[in-house]
């Protein structure tokens, strides 16, 4: 029966989306599952209705349920069960868990940032040590090493010794510290952005990034400007990432 085929196809994709949560402990967020399923159901529906005959077969059982006098009992049962099921789902899905959060992990930085008694123009700011990478590779290695020392004295407690966000203190924090490995955090950012983010930490997050619940300290109070630039060199060097740039 075409309707059963339709339901089974949709169910198959639903279970596929639930699999990472069941088997791996990394669930696809419910908000995303809803969005995915909405379009999967629509696509399956479209494929099954490209001809009049197909559409007729698909909806025949529904039509029969509504119109066929001999199905009165089933019809009434369905009309009672459906609203109760909807009410249960609405009840079950609300009130038990805190609402989902839409938090921008990387909110837009300001154009200007003030620290160390001066103003930095973030649109043009570049890492002053970056040019040494080509000019004097040996000296650059030393700078990276110094950056590494800064990292292991200050940052690794949360961000981890492998820079993967799994430091000693990470499990106690919510949201968790970001990993620098992978290609979807610092690889997506300009060095000036990372500089601003380190300087200002959680307290300096703009309202746009709200809820501003990052536990990261504002490192401008602890580290010198040079130390911050050096640790940035280390972050990119260790992870093999390159920063976003336009030249």
């Amino acid at each position, binding site marked *: 029966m075409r309707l059963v085929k339709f339901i089974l196809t949709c169910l198959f994709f639903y279970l596929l989306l639930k699999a990472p949560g069941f088997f791996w402990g990394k669930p696809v967020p419910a908000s995303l599952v809803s969005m995915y399923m909405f379009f999967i159901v629509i696509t399956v529906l479209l494929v099954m209705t490209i001809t009049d005959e197909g559409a007729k077969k698909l909806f025949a059982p529904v039509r029969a349920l509504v119109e066929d006098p001999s199905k009165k009992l089933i019809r009434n049962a369905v009309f009672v069960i459906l609203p109760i099921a909807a009410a249960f789902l609405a009840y079950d899905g609300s009130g038990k868990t805190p609402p989902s959060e839409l938090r921008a*992990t990387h909110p837009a930085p300001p154009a200007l940032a003030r620290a160390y008694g001066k103003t930095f123009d973030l649109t043009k700011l570049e890492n002053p040590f970056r040019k040494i990478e080509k000019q004097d590779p040996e000296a650059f290695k030393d700078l990276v090493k110094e950056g590494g020392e800064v990292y292991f004295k200050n940052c690794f407690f949360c961000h981890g010794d492998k820079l993967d966000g799994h430091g000693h203190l990470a499990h106690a924090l*919510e949201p968790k510290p970001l990993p620098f490995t992978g290609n979807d955090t610092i690889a997506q950012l300009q060095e000036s952005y990372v500089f601003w983010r380190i300087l200002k930490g959680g307290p300096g997050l703009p309202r746009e990034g709200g809820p501003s619940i990052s536990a990261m300290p504002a490192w401008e109070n602890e580290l010198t400007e040079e130390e911050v630039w050096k640790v940035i060199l280390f972050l990119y060097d260790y992870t093999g990432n390159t920063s976003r740039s336009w030249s």
Partner: protein
Amino acid sequence: MLTAAFAAFPLFFLLPDIFSGCFVYAAETARAFGPAPILAPGDYPKVTGVNPRMFVWMAAQMHLWFAAFVLAVPIFVLLLEIAGVIKKDKRYDKVAYEFLRVSLTAYSITAITGGLLLLGLIVFYPDLMKYLSGIFGSTMLLYALFFFVESAALYLYYYGWKSMSAGNLKWAHIGVGLLLNASGTTLMFIANAWVTFMMTPAGVDIAGVFDGNIWHAVRNHLWGPMNLHRFIANIAYGGSIVAAYAAYRFLGAKDNTEKAHYDWMGYTANLVAIGALLPLPFAGYWLTAEIYAYSQQMGITLMGGLFAWLFIIQAVLIGALFLAANYYLWCGLGRGVNGERYYKYVKYIAFVIAATFLVWFTPHTLILTPEEASSLGGQYHPLLGPLGLMPAKNIAVNIMLLFTFLSFLLYRRAYRTPTVKWAITGTAVEAALFTAAIANIIWLGVYYGYFTNSVYKVASSVPQVATTLFVIVACLVIEYFMHRKAETTELKWGSVPDRSQYALFLIAVSFTWLMGLMGFVRSAIRQHWHVYSVMRHNSPDAFTPSIAYAAKTVSVGTIIFMAIIAFIFWLSHIGQESGAGDE
């Protein structure tokens, strides 16, 4: 007439030179320009009961929609008129004329909403207007001039349609159409200069003091990308509205002849719309890359920060649009005798399009419950995180385009059977081209997108697009030679199910909604600036509305616009029934 027509085309391309000529003169006679004014909340006039921003927002939005419509329709009409002359098929001429008549009403509404917008800007933002007109005064006069040229050309084009329908006069008429389009597009380019200047100001210093050379201000960072993006988008939009009109008439058709006519009209219009849609993502990508390159702050606000979720809505609408376009083609397989043999492939095409669609709208920063956030250990999903980045989107959109093109190829084969000996080989070559292209697109996207720096990442989108376009062109060439002497059967126009017509409505509504949403996002990334980083917005409305508020406002605007469009369709219908306008 011919002189005017031929004069129009070079004018279009010489415009930058004409501009620079005026601007050099302006620079030579430059007066001392002052800095951008620093405004206080009291500098913004108030009118009781009117929200200034909402007034300007809605007026601008309505004006833009109607302007896009009246700019798009003449492009579309001209293409149809030329196609009619080349193919010697009167149907094209009939449809073109029918639609030009529809656009006449929209033309006057465009002028009215434009007037409202100007009024709102002058009443509520006088200092901003004073500052902008101090820089762009000469282009505003040029705008008025081209407005008159466009109006004159439009009336001549419409009222001269029947009297200039044969021989050389027909070509002269096409020339007038060209003049109409050239002047309309020039109008858009001029207005684009003002809008893009507000986002990426040029020719001014940090205090907003203008250097006196208006060409510098016009040719700002985003002017080129915006011109290209809007030009292509207008063609797609015009096609979609024409297709929606055809669907409206198809559903209300009284007999099979009428039904067949509007089925054909809807198909042709949709073909133009989707044809123009194909390069649109790439023009949009260029525009976005330029925004990012100009300002990291605007770029992140746009795609990674506050407005990232509006981009997800955009992706959803674009995906819906592709899905609808494909559905329309799949339903159309039934028009051809051989269509049935391709039904079995539809589910595979649908699978790929749906899968790429899901990748296309997968967000990078997820909406998570605290439990989910805890399980994932952060805001990103280890599996889905990479799908939230642009390289994945580029792969997805290119494959989506290729498979939409595949639907089109199957549709074209539904009524033709090749007779050449190499038909099987030709099909195999096409299949090989598709396979190689997909492999290349994925490799380029994965390698350059995830394992090199951002310069290569952005640059890799160019060979991806080139691959897609190459396959489309190559397959069209193969198809042309393969089907030159093919056995053809007549297409059963009017035989498609009514359901397919709702796909055409969906495409038009999606386009409209998209334009509203993305227009808001583009404008709103200036945040609290009238002119980004130069002239600060200090009225009480200088806050960024929430995503929900913006989405509701744009949605209400979309409903109002579509209601007016439906009214225009109805007016045209009753006008045609009573014979009015057919003189």
